[in-house]
Every structure is written in structure tokens, then in C-alpha cells.
């Protein structure tokens, strides 16, 4: 450990050369640095970019094909170029282009999953952090509510709410978010309890930071890594929960479709047309894995501990 002799103020001023502060590398620069040696990370990034582009532009280009039935082309097998590019991934029971169906479903699925996860993460972790920091009676009450939510099957809860409110995109997102919110509350609270006792929180208080500032600028950034990891894991789960609800007819309604809904549809024809259930399943898996890998890459990029 080498430390120099303390400089006096006068010396410090002469040392002020140019007074330019070292710029910090931008996030994209650091991300590139991490990705350079991470093949899996590169692959995940490519997959995510492709899926997002497909979900944004696919429905614009092939939206009509997704609803155009052609009974003459029922269950066309995939990877057969004879029927044209639209049928490269085969067709479903009504002879609709399965590629188009997948793309349209991708948009709905991603919107639902992303929004539900973001809403649950933001609200859940905020509640968790606040009650963890305040502690005492508020903490006890909120955690008992969380216990009740954990004990109650979340799918059943979602069913009851959707049955009373009625199906639709917005209720679906809210229900999916609320049903899993308890997990975020729990994780954020546990992390907060640990961080709250660390010396830098005391130091921040000693330097005049109030409770709101401490929660938002001292605790939240520290626990963000754990919460984001949790959110990426939950992402896949939300897609699957949504498919379960769609399967029960309380998810998105026709003609809107999601990957989960496609699986539910394809289940009936598994013996004749494997692709109708397999391809959307593959899409869900691929998205979930890519998101998880990418989350790890981002975590390593921002890591400062």
C-alpha cells in the first residue's frame, strides 16, 4: 500500500492541471468490453435483438396472414419451401401461416410479460425496500399480507380477479403483476434489512440525508442487482402463467394470440402437427434463456462491488 505524503492546499492547487475530470466510460463501451469475450452473451444479445425486431416489425408485415384462413393448406409441414415463404414454419388447423401467427403472438406475449414484470418489480421492490427500512409494525403487517399471498395459489388468485373484472390485456397484466409481487417484496425487504445496517447508510444519515434520499439513493441502487436477477427469472414464469390463463380462456381473447395461447391450441393436434405446440414453446424457452444470460452480462457490466 503506497500512499504519498499529504499535500498542502497550496501544492494541491498547482497540481490542478487543466482541471479536467477523467471521463467515465459509457455503458455501451463497458458492455462491449464484457461481451468481447463472452460467446454466450453475444448469442443472447443477438437472439433478443432478433426477437424484439421480429415482434415489432413482423406483425406489420405479416399481420394479415396471421388471420387469413386457407383450409386447403391445413397442417402444412414446416421447412418445406413448396408453399412459399409465409409457410416456411408450416400452418395451423385453419391453414394460417404459422410464421405470421408466431410473430403476432410474439408482440402480445412480450408486451404482457415485459409490462407485468416491470410493474411487479417497480411496485414490489419499492414496497419491500420501504417496509424493510421503516421496520416495526408496518413491516410486520405488510409481510403478513405477503405471507397470505404466498399461501394462496397465485393462479387461483389471478383466475378469481380475471373472472370478476373480465378478461382483457390491461387486467391480465395487472393480475400477473400482482400475483407475483409478493416475491419481489420479500427479496427487496430481505436485502434492505442487510444493507440498512451497513456503515455507509449511517454515514449518509450523519451527513444529512433524509429517509427518502437514503432509500432511493443509498439502498435501492445496492439491492437493484438482486431484484433485476429475480425479475429475469420471473420473466419466463410470467409467460407461462399467461399461457395457463389463456388456456383457461381468461387470458387474451381471440383474435389476439400469445405464445402460450398457441401452445394451448396446438395441444389438441400434437399427434398430427408437432410444430404447432413445439415452435411457440421453443420461442418461450429461447426468449427466457436469452433474457437470463443477458441479465447476467448486464450485471457484470455494472458491477462495482
Amino acid at each position, binding site marked *: *500500500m503506497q*500512499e*504519498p*505524503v*499529504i*499535500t*498542502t*492546499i497550496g501544492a*494541491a492547487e498547482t*497540481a*490542478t*492541471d487543466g*482541471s*479536467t*475530470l*477523467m*471521463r*467515465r466510460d459509457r455503458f455501451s463501451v463497458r458492455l462491449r468490453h464484457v461481451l468481447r469475450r463472452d460467446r454466450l452473451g453475444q448469442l443472447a444479445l443477438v437472439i433478443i435483438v432478433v426477437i424484439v425486431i421480429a415482434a415489432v416489425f413482423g406483425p406489420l408485415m405479416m399481420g394479415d396472414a396471421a388471420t387469413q384462413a386457407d383450409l386447403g393448406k391445413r397442417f402444412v409441414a414446416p421447412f418445406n419451401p413448396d408453399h412459399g415463404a409465409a409457410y416456411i414454419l408450416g400452418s395451423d388447423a385453419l391453414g394460417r401461416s404459422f410464421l405470421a401467427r408466431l410473430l403476432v403472438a410474439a408482440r402480445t406475449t412480450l408486451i404482457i410479460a415485459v409490462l407485468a414484470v416491470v410493474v411487479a418489480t417497480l411496485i414490489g421492490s419499492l414496497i419491500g425496500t420501504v417496509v424493510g427500512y421503516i421496520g*416495526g409494525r408496518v413491516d410486520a403487517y405488510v409481510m403478513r399480507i405477503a405471507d397470505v399471498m404466498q399461501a394462496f395459489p397465485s393462479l387461483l388468485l389471478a383466475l378469481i380477479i380475471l373472472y370478476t373484472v373480465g378478461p382483457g390485456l390491461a387486467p391480465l397484466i395487472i393480475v400477473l403483476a400482482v400475483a407475483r409481487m409478493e416475491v419481489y417484496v420479500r427479496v427487496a425487504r430481505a436485502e434492505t434489512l442487510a444493507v440498512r445496517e*451497513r*456503515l*455507509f447508510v*449511517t*454515514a*449518509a*444519515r*450523519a*451527513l*444529512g*440525508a*433524509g429517509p427518502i*434520499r437514503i432509500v432511493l*439513493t*443509498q439502498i435501492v*441502487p*445496492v439491492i*437493484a442487482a438482486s431484484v433485476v436477477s429475480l425479475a429475469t427469472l420471473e420473466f419466463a414464469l410470467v409467460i407461462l402463467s399467461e399461457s395457463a390463463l389463456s388456456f383457461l380462456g381468461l387470458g387474451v381473447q381471440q383474435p389476439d394470440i400469445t405464445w402460450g395461447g398457441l401452445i394451448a391450441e396446438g395441444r389438441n393436434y400434437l399427434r398430427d402437427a408437432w410444430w404447432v405446440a413445439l415452435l411457440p414453446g421453443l420461442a418461450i424457452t429461447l426468449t427466457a434463456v436469452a433474457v437470463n444470460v443477458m441479465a447476467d452480462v448486464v450485471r457484470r457490466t455494472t458491477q*462495482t*462491488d
Partner: protein
Amino acid sequence: MMGQLEKPADDGCTSTTDTHVLDVKDLAVEFRLRTGVVHAVAGLSYFLDKGETLAIVGESGSGKSVAAYAVLGILTTPPAFVTGGRVLLQGRDLLAMSENQRRRLRGNEIAMVAQNASLNPVFSVGWQIAEQFRVHRGTPRREAMQLAGELMDRVGIPSARQRVNDHPHQFSGGMRQRVAIAMAMALEPAVLIADEPTTALDVTVQAQIMALLAEMQQQTGMGLILITHDLGLVSEAADRLVVMYAGRECETGGVEEVFRNPGHPYTRGLMKSIPHMDRKQARLEPIGGSLADLMNVPTGCPFHPRCPFAEQRCTTEPVKLQEIGPGRMSSCLRVNEIREQLDGE
């Protein structure tokens, strides 16, 4: 604050002039736990003048950190309650203020340097220093970062401007402590409380940090409260000291006089239990027994169960600080007898 002030007689343990930057009177703090009430601080009084260094010394658990936190008003309530006393910071009573008013003063006029690792790991050190300027003064971000860079230069961090965007883990322990000092000193507070500022550092770095604190003190004229159990550090750095035992003050005075002629058996014990460089000892002389149970403080003098000089009246008679010389006070009932006895030897 909580009302039940016992109103102990003003025994003149602090001078009554208003010139002190910090004047603490009869501070009392208790922790109300399920198992009982812990009187962590019971009637602590001290004052601090401009440009002065006051050491608060005591064993672990003697209440020195709690007292400091109470002065800053950052104890967690519950379980901790400040049950009495006054804390006058430049004439204004901190304990009588609203939390909001007090918060504005923290960082601005009174600040703290804690032990190592008081930096948030996820932010760059420059950002954390700059936050002081941005939040308390509303300085624009860019300018605040410039100031942070200058400050880091001032506390002796090499190539400070290149390192403003580094994170705490990229610094050594000593450098981190310099950053923490820069943060606390950013707004040039009138009082700086250093809670064991060198505990986690090795000896050469300790000396550098103390030199830095002394230098900052000279430049800004702040009063420094040094909380420590390291008597070597006290003899080096402090002007006056307060010795605490079981949340109570047992001796106060100028460092030199107290070291030369301790006025309390506890101080004497503390000094005997540190090793000396100039003579070889087979074993040190520790103070026998263990720290008083703060939930159940012994009657009379709280130190009597461990005191080699204790006699019958020490176990019953309540103790209070008495003047034993210019600017010196001791709570020992037998201070004069003990002194005579030891001088006779």
C-alpha cells in the same frame, strides 16, 4: 427530549460561556428493549472549542459511539431514546429542533467520519462527494464533480482528477478513509465527529490519516471529536479527553495532565493495560472483571466491582463529577486519598 429530565444539579462540569462550538450537557440515552432498559449514556457532559480536539475514550460498550450518534441525532428510535440533556451546536439546541431542521445541519455544520467502509459500493467516490454539494448547496452536477475532484486532491489522493469516477473498491483502505474525510469535510462543518477513524487501518496509514485530520482542522478551524479506544492515538492527537465508563463520564481534563496523573482508577487501569515500547513486560495488566451490565448498573460508583481501590462507600454513595484541578474533573469519590497514597509510594 422525552420529558423525564431528572434535572441534575449544574455541577459546573461545563463552563457556561457560549463560546463553545459544541456544548453537550447531561446527555442521557436509553435503549428500550424487550428484556429491559439499557442506560447506554447517563449524564454525559462535555464541550468542544473551535479548533480543538477532544478525545472520548472508553472500552467497547462504554457508550462512546452511542453518545456521538445521539449528538448527531442519528440513533434509531426505537429502540434508542434520548431521554435528557442538551446539545448546543453553536448555541442552538439540537435536541429541541425538529428532525428536519437537524437534518439540514448534519453535513453542513456537524459531520461524521465513521470507521472504514462508509462509502456506498455502487457509486463512484466523486459522485458521493459531489452529492454533498448538490444536495446541501444545490450546486449543478458538473460543478459539484469539479469540487469533488479538488477536494480529493486536497485530502491527498494521487491523480485525484483521474480517479473521481472510480468506485470505492478500487481504492485502498487508507485512500477510502481519505475519501470519507473529504465527504465529511466537503461543506466545512464546524464540528467533525471521527468515530474510530483509524481502527481498520495499519499503523503508518493511521498516522497519515491523523495528520490529514489535523491539517484540515488547522485550515478550517473546526472542532474535532475523536472517539477511540486507542490511548496512543489520544496522546498524539487530542488536546483534552473524556474517559467514559458504563455510559458515564469518569474523568476529563487536558491530555497531558490526565496521562501524567490520572484522576480515576479506571483511567489508571486503561493506561496500565497498554503495552510499552520501552520496557518488556511478561504480561500486561488488564482491568479485572468485565464491563458493567448496562441494564443493571452497579449502585454507587459503576466501576466499584472492578476497582482495586474500592471501599464500602463506593458501593452505595452516588458519584458525581468533582473538580480536581484546573479544567480537570473526576467522578472518583476517593480521588484525593488515592492520589496521596500513590504519591507516597
